[in-house]
């Protein structure tokens, strides 16, 4: 296994530049959750010229809709959801200063281009490894859109959240590289 890079969230412009597609990372600090419905509301609020319920600058958004929290636990199972459904909204959020995303699955060319242009990275976590990932979430706070239930925006305090850099600020896409390496077609 490659060497593990330990990084802090919110991210800095320097940190994202030091990351390369394929790097294995552990993220500690604070990240925000948002998926389909929250993305829709955030971009609609921006279109109306409203202030967002969170400052996106340098922050990492985790695409997740956790299962309900059992008594005595910090969060329920909380693995990544398919990122592609957020592609439509992502370039706008990156433009607003968002530095990182955590999800799973393919991204559009527009998202990759925005990562290069504004300096953002796309991390992937192991889809379906929700129970293991939850161990790295040590705190949770409701931030906005509570009515959306599992789709509400929450702030997670994370300690050594396991992820892999998939799209870096240089336009590399680790899905393409990884699959090409093992293809025997």
């Amino acid at each position, binding site marked *: 296994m490659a060497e593990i890079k330990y990084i802090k969230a919110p991210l800095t412009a320097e940190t994202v530049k030091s990351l390369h597609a394929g790097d294995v990372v552990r993220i500690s600090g604070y990240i925000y959750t948002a998926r389909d419905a929250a993305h829709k509301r955030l971009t609609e609020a921006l279109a109306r010229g409203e202030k967002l319920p969170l400052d996106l600058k340098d922050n990492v958004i985790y695409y997740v809709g956790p299962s309900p929290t059992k008594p005595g636990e910090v969060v329920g199972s909380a693995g990544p959801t398919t990122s*592609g459904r957020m592609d439509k909204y992502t370039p706008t959020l990156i433009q607003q200063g968002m530095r990182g995303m955590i999800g799973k699955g393919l991204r559009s060319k527009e998202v990759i281009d925005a990562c290069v242009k504004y300096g953002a990275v796309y991390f*992937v976590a192991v*889809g*379906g490894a929700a129970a293991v990932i939850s161990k790295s979430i040590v705190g949770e706070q409701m931030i906005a859109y509570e009515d959306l239930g599992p789709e509400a925006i929450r702030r997670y305090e994370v300690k050594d959240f396991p992820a*892999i850099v998939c799209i870096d600020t240089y336009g590399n896409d680790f*899905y393409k590289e990884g699959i090409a390496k*093992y293809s025997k077609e």
Partner: protein
Amino acid sequence: MREIDVKQVTEAVAKLCKDSCYYLPEELLAFYKEAVNREESPLGKEILNTIIENAELAKSKDVPICQDTGLTVVFMEIGQDVHFIGGDLYTAIHAGVADGYVKGYLRKSSVDDPVFVRKNTNDNTPAIIHTTIVSGDKVKITVCPKGCGSENMGAMKMLKPADGVEGIIKFVVDTVRSAGPNPCPPVTVGVGVGGNMEKAALLAKYSLTRKVGEHNKNPQYAELETKLLDLVNKTGVGPSGLGGRITAVAVNIEYAPTHIGGMPVAVNLNCHAARRAEMVL
């Protein structure tokens, strides 16, 4: 005639919802443990180990393997000598789903109207129910919650007879390749061939209720399953779609007689968290 109170059905469905979401089928876990040794990519090995660790952790804590506890698909084989009493069967199944999802801390992912309202029903109902009538006086219930990451990557095509087996091979492999990381590989590939449009789709879904290692009883189809598995693993998609050898656990084909003019084929992909629990009443 054997009487079964629908309360028993509600209780069984509630338990199966929880069990399927907490406990990965034993033989699937065994498959991953063996597949780690065959995986060529170091990162792929690491991901398979994470999948194993995750399944074991979920089991020990009684928490969902994956947060997307899906729409609840219920297959029910009902012996024709059974008479249900105490209420309506479908209502009893939905009540079991609601109970299992609410009390089991499973995520509710069902919205009432697909286009305009999209309001969460808050108890994961309605279940998607497929009943068949069989001989005897038993009832077999199989609950397979299925997340949308894998469900969204399914595909269906009305192939023509002239497309032949090559047409099927190309369609299946293309579907898995273009799905890439989205359905959380290693996937189980469910293939339904023949019948008509809805029959092929249902066969593809039904094939996912098989245990790992079970093949179609028709040797020609069993051989095609093996061939397809090999081709799918050659795509290089690998665990989590980050590159590697183990792209799929199995390819399961179910077939049905069809029209002289057609050869429908449906592909339904299941993720590594292929949840399934069954019970016989």
